[in-house]
């Protein structure tokens, strides 16, 4: 008797998502890809973003709500290159949704469409939580956003051909607006070239590459390892001979080591949004870059 009730509950739980919504469902791992998917799909899709700017995308737990969302998704858009290796494989496995598994049309890894920097020459745990495929934090170079947009626009049209023309139109319109914005950003950011910076985690490599910023140090002694006092002391020593203009961290990172270094050096501490939703100005991808440049320019080279 009880087995029969439980059997029916299972059926209801598994089947109800199928008929729930006719429009395309997109599961985005990080806010930047959620925002991009929304730009490119408009009304044609419902976008769920699995993480916020206040969470560390390296360390997310495969909670029930993520599994439930992945179960009903038609397309998963993630960073890839190992960023989500601690949780996404489990979410995909538990979701039991064959449309979105790695290698299918329903799974898009943004880093597959971008030339990756910082590919490690050797892999050793002694070097910390190193990303084996290269640095996955690609979103702070707007040229990468455009590369991913092109791939994502194509993919949307492929898996939802009914709205194919609409996706192509939206991609075209987004690319034009984005290219115009990139020109503006490039001009605004020209004075920042060569600006010496200190960062918390190796998350700004692509922004540095784009703007020509010079990264002097990372507060993490090894990638993914929390700052230690001995490492901070070593950075403090190094900054005496080679000072930086700013100490940068993302909203999800501990402000205390940054504050400590600021107090001991007088170098301004700066929280940059890092992704969409990182502060009240970074409400979309355009706002993310507008605000990041504005904050950097306020400090100045």
């Amino acid at each position, binding site marked *: 008797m009880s*087995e029969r009730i439980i059997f029916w509950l299972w059926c209801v*739980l598994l089947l109800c998502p199928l008929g729930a919504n006719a429009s395309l469902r997109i599961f985005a791992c990080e806010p930047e890809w959620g925002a991009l998917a929304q730009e490119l799909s408009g009304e044609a899709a419902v976008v769920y973003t699995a993480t916020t700017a206040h*969470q560390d995308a390296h360390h997310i*737990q495969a909670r029930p*709500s993520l599994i439930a969302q992945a179960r009903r998704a038609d397309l998963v858009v993630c960073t890839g290159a190992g960023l989500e290796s601690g949780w996404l*494989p*489990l979410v995909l496995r538990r979701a039991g949704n064959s449309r979105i598994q790695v290698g299918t049309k329903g799974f898009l890894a943004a880093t597959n469409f971008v030339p990756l920097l910082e590919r490690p020459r050797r892999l050793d*745990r002694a070097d910390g939580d190193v990303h084996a495929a290269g640095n996955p934090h690609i979103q702070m170079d707007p040229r990468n956003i455009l590369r991913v947009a092109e791939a994502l626009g194509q993919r949307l049209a492929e898996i939802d051909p009914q709205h194919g023309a609409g996706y192509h139109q939206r991609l075209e319109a987004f690319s034009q607006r984005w290219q115009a914005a990139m020109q503006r950003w490039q001009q605004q950011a020209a004075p920042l070239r060569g600006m010496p910076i200190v960062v918390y985690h190796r998350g700004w490599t692509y922004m540095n590459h784009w703007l020509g910023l010079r990264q002097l140090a990372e507060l993490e002694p090894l990638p993914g390892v929390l700052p230690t006092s001995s490492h901070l002391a070593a950075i403090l020593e190094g900054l005496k001979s080679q000072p930086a203009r700013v100490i940068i961290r993302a909203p999800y990172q*501990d402000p205390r080591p940054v504050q400590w270094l600021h107090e001991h050096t007088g170098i301004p501490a700066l929280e940059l949004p890092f992704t969409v939703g990182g502060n009240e100005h970074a409400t979309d991808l355009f706002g993310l870059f507008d605000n990041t440049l504005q904050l950097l320019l306020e400090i100045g080279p």
Partner: protein
Amino acid sequence: MLKLGGDIGDSSAWQGGLSALSAEVHDRASATSPPDTVAAFSGDSDLYVADFVYKWAPAGNPDQRNLKLQTEFFYRREQGDVALREGGSAALLGYKGRQSGWYAQAVYQFVAHWRAGLRYDRLTADNRLQVLETSGFSSSADAIAKSGFADRGHDPQRWSFMLDWSPSEFSRIRAQYNRDESRANASDDQWTLQYIMTLGSHGAHLF
């Protein structure tokens, strides 16, 4: 088996599970009857298990502070006969047993690398036996005692407190204190210090 879960805002998530198992048992031996005695239970056995997990972290970011509450409850109900043999003696007993157990624990990471936890465990049993037929045993009480199916009239419980420090994702040092009241008329104070090391690539972050 049924599992349900969800989020409460950005900071909290929960998961609850229920499962039930029904079995018809034939000749399951008692583990606690004396060595030269054979006692076997036949009848119906139903097991129910419920579990609940709640997690909290400020803005969903557990790096600095987070809390995990967890509880699990099981209940077993059995009804049937116990066939008992000891040398030339034999008896048939009617058996109706209910056992339950549960634990609740809270683990709080109050600063990066440091966690404190509290846990309570308890087991209860209410087993009733009635002698239906007997030959060779000195009394009904003797047959019931030898079956090993009677409860002890004591509910074991344990309190635990722990504090641990994880210098990295792969190692952990834990100090733990247990007050163990498993035995009927004595309690044990246990102190342990453990070093826990994880080898190989780190596993997925399970809920």
